[in-house]
């Protein structure tokens, strides 16, 4: 079993295999695992499809190479196969700027819990001025 963490999601998936450092998952479990599935027109999440490039070797009869797909769409991957945990990060912030996108002036939204587990989003405060302050115990 592998734990996959991306966005604000964390899922446990059975049937993972590692080949040459890449994570392969059963094709039939992909939609519930990562929200994408393999169709004739490409690898799709809802109505959004990434066309399959000619000659791509991201899948075989029953498994899909998640790591190769992640590289193709520009996700960063960090994995600890021995402990069964893998993380994906969508480029944003300064890394994304380096790739050529303009720095945003729109404040990116986020949702986080408070000490009591109640969720708060930045967008809940639309219509107010917000000083967003980060701090840490270290």
């Amino acid at each position, binding site marked *: 079993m592998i734990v996959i963490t991306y966005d604000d999601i964390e899922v446990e998936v059975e049937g993972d295999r590692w080949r040459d450092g890449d994570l392969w998952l059963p094709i039939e479990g992909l939609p519930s695992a990562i929200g994408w599935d393999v169709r004739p027109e490409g690898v799709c999440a809802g109505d959004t499809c990434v066309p399959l490039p000619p000659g791509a070797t991201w899948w075989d009869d029953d498994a899909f190479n998640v790591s190769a797909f992640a590289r193709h769409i520009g996700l960063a991957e960090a994995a600890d196969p021995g402990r069964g945990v893998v*993380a994906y990060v969508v480029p944003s*912030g*300064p890394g994304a700027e380096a790739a050529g996108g303009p720095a945003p002036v729109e404040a990116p939204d986020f949702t986080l819990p*408070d000490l009591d587990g109640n969720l*708060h989003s930045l967008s809940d405060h639309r219509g107010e001025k917000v000083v967003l*302050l*980060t*701090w840490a*115990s270290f």
Partner: protein
Amino acid sequence: MLAVAEDAGGAETARPWIRPTNMEEQYPPPVLDLMGWDAEVWPRAAPPQYPCLIDQRHEVSRLYGMVNVPTAVWIDEDGRIVRPPEPAGVNEGFRHLDLATFSMPADAVEAGVRLRRRYFDAVRDWVRRGADSPAVLPPDEVRRRMGRGARWGDPVRAAAHLRLAEALYRRKDPDAAQAHFAEAARLWPENWAYQRQARQLSDPAAVGELDAGPEFWRSVEQRGEGSFYPPVDIPDTV
């Protein structure tokens, strides 16, 4: 005001700082001096009156390209950034700290308090005058300043390792987590928060404690003045 704790140790680690019970045990004297806190001010100044959120994966820092704490961003009523991430009323006065006595020279304390006051005066001015405040920056300047970050390193891969480390730490595997905290710090050397987080969680006795050991001081010295809290040109609004 929204306060976000960038703490992979989670609520358990942040709670004593958000709801502190003992001023003198938790805050070293130089911090109390800079904050202007004493036994009289403490009971009304310390309890936060705004949401205090916990960000175990350092997602807010990643989204905004922040590399240290405390860092603040000003966001207007339309959700637009009018001041980009910058050290929030803090400077590098700690470089003058006498490590033997843990005291700071009076002029360094005074400079810190002055900067802090100027910063909060500017916040109040913005709250009162909105876009007419001289502290508000035009969009191009916001973009320019936000583009100054990440001069070297690989922030996106670093964020992936930080995220993996946090997941391992939460699964009670601190040794495995440490390797990835360290990798995150290595991949984005400019990110002080990653380095400090990695060091803090490398030692069970240091969890929740200020990172102020020899390695911290060594890296602060090596990187030179202005690297930890770059000077902020906040206008005088009073």
